[in-house]
């Protein structure tokens, strides 16, 4: 190639560059995400520069402060009307700042904060060689059972990287439900998924099981991501744009100013249908809907319990948020196509989760199947395709996440020589030995079962009502039937705890630090407050239920 040709290449390439506008970023409106991301980076620096002994404290400090600050930012945005009147799309069309975004971000941040407390718990396991230990492996890279692992334990290593990983995951989750174009959606998906895969592998005890869970989660997650990405490509092919608003316009046929180069390929309905089905599938994987749920029990069981609790709560919030935005903002014009399919998914998710849970013998797997059934209930609210549907889902997610974190936090307390005693038979008679812990767990189980005066009842009532009003009455019938089936195994655990003879070699209940107590206490308080006086929060969710387009 000649020098002039090279030169002309260079100059023609250089010319348009100068014409690119500086992207306009509304830093204030993105503050919650930016704060958490910044803190995550700071956490990485802490790992690098702070001495080992102080790292734990530094990390906990950074994490707590950032989550609180981010939550304050969310509250400030909401108070300034960004949830309602001033809702708009920020960051060049990438991020929507509106009611559902702020509500879900607030929920994720609070759930993250409570989850963080359980991450930071260091009093449950007995001290190893004079060092306090948490739920995470001493050194993630050491082979389980090897000498290097023993050496790491002896040296008192702890994996304080979990805190920045948690913050990264939270940051991704904050973006996920507010992503307003498909690319942002995908980036957010990966940003919160990858730290979770890692976190799942970090259990201190039963490390092989934990690593197996992480690998499964990673493989299946990558598989699902591939579907999502392919779906995104197909949708781009259909609409010639990644932007939610633009795609919606193409679906409605109200689009203007089409690039002539794209006009020829645009509007192919097969691309639209296949593409949206595949994206939806990726989201259904994240919420754990049947038949994309099979990772849930294995991962929930293998992951360190604090991670399970956080993941079960916050992932569901983020993924349902994204699903809502996708279905309500991008694909409302397509609802006659996706509603029947989602009906079927909701039905088999509700029934499948409830039925398989009956024969479970491990408390973490039981809760995993329970979370599948709950995903089905929430889907019923999503299907309502109304403002009430949105608000009921928002409310349900808020209530559900605290119950979940609280319940898994209780699971961390019941221990025997091998760590957590998760086999159900070991929980027999727990109510006789530790009435308070058993009573608290019973409250969570009743909330899962949707018994009145708990948040579970208020939430279930809200989604079922929205679904019935939205013309999905048969779905409500199935929902109530599965609730009845589900009540069986929740109540069975209560019966087991309170009406069975304690086993002589049964587990003991560890006395936790104020951190876990706070997590459980918040769980119980939120459960009861949302159950006894749900109206204020229902109103809040109702105000927050309009998507910006």
């Amino acid at each position, binding site marked *: 190639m000649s020098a002039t040709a090279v030169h002309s290449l260079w100059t023609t390439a250089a010319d348009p560059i100068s014409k690119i506008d500086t992207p306009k970023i509304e830093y204030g409106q993105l503050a919650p995400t930016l704060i958490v991301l910044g803190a995550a980076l700071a956490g990485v620096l802490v790992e690098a520069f702070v001495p080992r002994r102080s790292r734990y404290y530094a990390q906990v400090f950074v994490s707590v402060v950032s989550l609180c600050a981010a939550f304050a930012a969310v509250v400030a945005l909401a108070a300034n009307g960004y949830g309602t009147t001033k809702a708009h799309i920020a960051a060049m069309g990438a991020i929507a700042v509106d009611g559902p975004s702020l509500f879900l971000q607030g929920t994720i941040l609070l759930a993250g904060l409570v989850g963080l407390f359980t991450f930071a718990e260091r009093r449950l396991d007995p001290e190893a060689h004079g060092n306090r230990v948490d739920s995470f492996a001493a050194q993630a890279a050491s082979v389980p059972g090897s000498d290097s692992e023993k050496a790491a334990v002896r040296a008192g290593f702890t994996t304080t990287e979990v805190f920045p990983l948690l913050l990264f995951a939270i940051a991704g989750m904050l973006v996920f439900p507010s992503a307003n174009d498909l690319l942002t959606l995908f980036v957010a998906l990966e940003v919160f998924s990858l730290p979770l895969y890692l976190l799942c592998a970090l259990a201190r005890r039963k490390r092989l099981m934990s690593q197996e869970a992480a*690998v*499964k989660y990673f*493989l*299946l997650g990558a*598989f*699902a991501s591939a*579907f999502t990405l392919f779906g995104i490509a197909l949708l781009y092919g259909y609409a010639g744009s990644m932007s939610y608003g633009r795609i919606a316009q193409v679906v409605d046929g109200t689009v203007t100013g089409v690039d002539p180069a794209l006009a020829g390929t645009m509007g192919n*309905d*097969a691309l639209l*249908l*296949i593409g*949206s*089905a*595949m994206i*939806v*599938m990726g989201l*259904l*994987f994240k919420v754990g809907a*049947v*038949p*994309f749920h*099979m*990772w849930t*029990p*294995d991962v929930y069981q293998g992951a360190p319990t604090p991670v399970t609790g956080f993941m079960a709560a916050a992932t569901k919030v983020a993924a349902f948020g994204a699903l809502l935005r996708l279905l309500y903002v991008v694909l409302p014009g397509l609802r*006659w*196509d*996706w509603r*029947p*399919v989602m009906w*079927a*998914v909701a039905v088999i998710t509700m029934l*499948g989760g409830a*039925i*398989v*849970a*009956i*024969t*479970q013998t491990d408390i973490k797997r039981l809760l995993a199947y329970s979370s599948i059934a709950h995903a089905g209930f929430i889907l019923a609210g999503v299907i309502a395709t109304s403002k009430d549907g949105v608000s009921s889902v928002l409310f349900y997610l808020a209530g559900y996440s605290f119950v979940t974190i609280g319940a898994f936090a209780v699971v961390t307390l019941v221990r025997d020589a091998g760590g957590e005693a998760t086999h159900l038979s070991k929980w027999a008679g727990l109510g006789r030995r530790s009435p308070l812990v058993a009573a608290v767990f019973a409250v969570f189980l009743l909330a899962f079962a949707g018994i009145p005066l708990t948040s579970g009842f208020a939430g279930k009532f809200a989604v079922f009502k929205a679904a019935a009003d939205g013309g999905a009455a048969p779905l409500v019938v199935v929902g109530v039937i599965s609730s009845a*089936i589900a009540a*069986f195994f929740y109540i069975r655990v209560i019966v087991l705890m309170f009406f069975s003879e304690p086993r002589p070699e049964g587990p003991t209940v560890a006395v936790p630090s104020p951190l876990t107590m706070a997590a459980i206490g918040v769980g119980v308080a939120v459960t009861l407050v949302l159950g006894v006086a749900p109206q204020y929060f229902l109103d809040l969710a109702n105000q927050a239920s309009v998507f910006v387009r």
Partner: protein
Amino acid sequence: MDNLIALLIAAPLLGAAVLLVGGRRLDAVGHWIGTLLSTTSFVLGLVLFAGLLGKDAENRTLTQHLWTWIPVGGFQADVTFRLDQLSMTFVLLITGVGSLIHLYSVGYMEHDERRRRFFGYLNLFLAAMLLLVLADNYLLLYVGWEGVGLASYLLIGFWQHKPSAATAAKKAFLVNRVGDMGLSIAIMLMFTTFGSFAFGPVLSHTGDTSEGRLTAIGLMLLLAACGKSAQVPLQSWLGDAMEGPTPVSALIHAATMVTAGVYLIVRSGAIFNAAPDAQLAVTVVGAVTLIFGAIVGCAKDDIKKALAGSTMSQIGYMVLAAGLGPIGYVFAIMHLVTHGFFKAGLFLGAGSVMHGMNDEVDMRKYGALRTYMPITFVTFGLGYLAIIGFPFLSGFYSKDAIIEAAFAKGGTQGWILGGVALLGAAITAFYMTRVMLMTFFGEKRWQPDAQGHEPHPHESPKTMTIPMIVLAVGSVFAGFFFHLGDRFLHWLEPVTGHSEGDSPIGATTITGATLVCLVVGVGIAWARYGRKPVPVVAPRGSLLTRAARRDLLQDDFNHVVLVRGGEHLTRSLVYVDHTLVDGVVNGTAAGVGGLSGRLRRVQNGFARSYAVSMFGGAALLVAATLLMRAV
């Protein structure tokens, strides 16, 4: 003044709450708190009474609306009270006699370590009873009705360490449930018929409702009344209820619980007036119970059970009168009030006797007590004279009025009912004279009690004798006072209405006949128990006597017909439940469980299978979405 009504109920309710929640630190003063609050309610009643007297006869109905319980569509459940002449009468009786019984209990229960709790229950009882008579609608009345049932259960079984008391309480509760069922059905029928529970709408629309409906409602109300007022066929609990402390017997049998049925019938007079068949049933129940109770009362040697039989019989008079319609309503209530005085007095007297005789209840082991317990003797004696209808005492006026009203019913019915009422008067004279003679006259037949303590009869303390004296005064003068210038009639007439009826024989003749019956009854009793010594061990007696000792076989009847029958019914229901219902339920559960076990196997732990499942799911999802478009 209207808003004092709620305070009437609030005072004893507060007492119950304080005493039952307050715990042991109130043990020392609990009984006085209870008595004080009950008296407060009585004083409030007097204030309201004075207020009512100051108004015209037509404007003596006060209402107080507190709140609406559940307004749902056409269903309106108000907490509203109504104070009119009828409920005012009851309020004064309940709180007045109730307060006296509180005072009496201070002495009677002195040695009981659970005295505070006892007073709590007494206050609860008063509150429930006041709610019953002050309610302005049937639903609220039902609340009081159930409250009375609960409190009576607690009080009858107060000495729960005695199995017989626990059983008696349970029996009273269960039998009352049968009646309560009647009341709840009646209320439901009212709602479907009138669209309301309130007295106003229900009782003013009886004219434009079919008689069949009204008869059904009336019969259900009668069933309810039978339960609470111990009328045949639901009378069996009353005798056993004597297991409770004596003040309870006085409270339940004189002033309150058993009168609730009479109140219900009189309050619902408009319904019964429009349903002659139901009304006839009421009179039949009253007449049968009148004789039934009297015969039982003749055979009992237990002083409290003899009085219980008498109560049954006297309430029978009231129910009979209430069944006569406007001819009898006023006299039913008048007899209720005078009976409240003398029966409470008699029970308190019996309690006083027991108190002095080491809690002995067998009259065959009494005798000659008149010199040892003079005050008890005199007050009991005045009560006795009042109940048998001795001229110019309370019972004379009220009972005579009922007998006249029964004849005034007219026709064959009038003759039969009047005859029964007269016969009842004779038997009453017999059994009450028997009680009197066996207890206070004759020679000493005292026996040492189970621990070998010889009885040392003595007069009871002042807290016990003062109430007895007050009640005796009432027994003597109340009837005359009510009768003078037909005061009671004019007082109550605006609420219940009144008509003279049409008596085939003159009032004087009837009074004469009544007095003859009285003399005959007393004479026979004197011949059998006054002239001859009373054997300590009861003779075998005739067939009727033996049956009467067993309460005319009521329990045997209930056992054979209801218990056995019920057992057969439940057994067959259980069979159906086990095979059919459980079959379906267990089958479903087993099916779900089996499905769960099978589905669980899909979860085999291999990531590759999971991925296949996901791929299949995604394929289905895409295919279904495309299919939806194609269809």
